[in-house]
């Protein structure tokens, strides 16, 4: 099963990015093979709808779960429709979160925040 984590740096030993839609990279991790790869988040410089576009990247990459500290309502709708589960990350590195996920220690993310899409023109 493939899972995704928003990242500031392309390094499993660094911490999770606090933003989902505007994260520079997504770590795509395969829990069976242990393979990891980093995708550029093309939504990072979007004027608006970044969460939707970022979620689209994950839908297209075929992940089944997202591990993130926060998630907006539009991104959540995309992920929910695509049947991708969202888990809340804990403080620590991406690797620590992967370990926690594998050990079923992460909880489902419930506090979905309203979007920041009030700045459109």
């Amino acid at each position: 099963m493939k899972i995704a984590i928003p990242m500031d740096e392309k390094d499993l030993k660094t911490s999770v990015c606090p933003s989902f839609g505007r994260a520079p990279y997504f770590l795509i991790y395969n829990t069976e093979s242990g393979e990891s790869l980093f995708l550029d988040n093309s939504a990072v410089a979007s004027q608006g709808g970044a969460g939707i576009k970022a979620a689209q990247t994950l839908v297209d990459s075929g992940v089944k779960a997202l591990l993130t500290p926060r998630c907006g309502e539009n991104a959540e709708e995309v992920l929910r429709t695509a049947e991708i589960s969202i888990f809340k990350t804990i403080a620590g590195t991406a690797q620590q979160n992967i370990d926690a996920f594998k050990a079923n220690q992460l909880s489902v993310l419930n506090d979905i925040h309203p979007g920041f899409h009030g700045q459109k023109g």
Partner: protein
Amino acid sequence: MTFIRDFMVKKGEDMRIAVLSGKGGTGKTLVSVNLASAADSAVYIDCDVEEPDGHLFFKPQIVSSEEIAVKLPSIDNGLCNGCRKCVDFCKFNALAFIKGRPCVFEDVCHSCGGCTLVCPERAITETDRAVGEIRKGTSGSVTAYTGILKPGEESGVPIIKRIMQASGSEGDALRIIDCPPGSACVVVESIRDADYCILVAEPTVFGVHNLNMVYGLVKLFNKPFGAVLNKCLDGENPAEKFCIENSIPIIGRIPFDTELGKMNSDAEIAARESKKYKELFSDLLRTAMKEARRETAFDTQR
């Protein structure tokens, strides 16, 4: 020629003066409402569509109203072949592609209509969604337009576009445009056709920060402008200092005055109720119009 024009009061002259500030509560509506009232006749346009309050002062007799709608894509899943062209086309990320079908995020859509054009199956049609209304009314010598955005709607831009278009039917007139606060898209849309911009500033350090925002905006759009210092007290005025340092013409000063404050909080129009303020706002209007004409003449010479 310029000399003569400066001192002539031209009847039916076409001029658009926008009043803006970096934050709410600075005195945009106070200045706009009173400028419109000080004129022989004027069209007042309330573009602060999230919280229009000019009508509280004018209490206009409503003569007409119009619902404003935006276009939203509606997808016929029976016709859609899942080619994804619409999703890839949308630069606003208002469409997502999930389980082989596009889905629409209404509050992110900018109603550009692009998705309907790129769809090879003609599976996308546009439907109307009401986002607000505009009202036209009269109050003495003032024709007042009010734009109203529905609560919860994301953008007032479609309303401002339409109110500008609708108020254009008044012909040659003095138009006073009461802008929304700040320097975002709604303000850009409000000053688009303005001949002159009045920046209203408060005498505080915070006021200077906000003044700087709208100062940057009018410079960016190459609009002629001047500042009105509101709530003036004796002593140091950081906004005045900022204007002097940046060579911003100060075209008027409004005192921090209990009498004015009381009239304003009672929704009375000072220029109609008080001789003193009728004079102050008439002077301000004359100065603003003179500055605007000078800029227009200067532009023509260039």
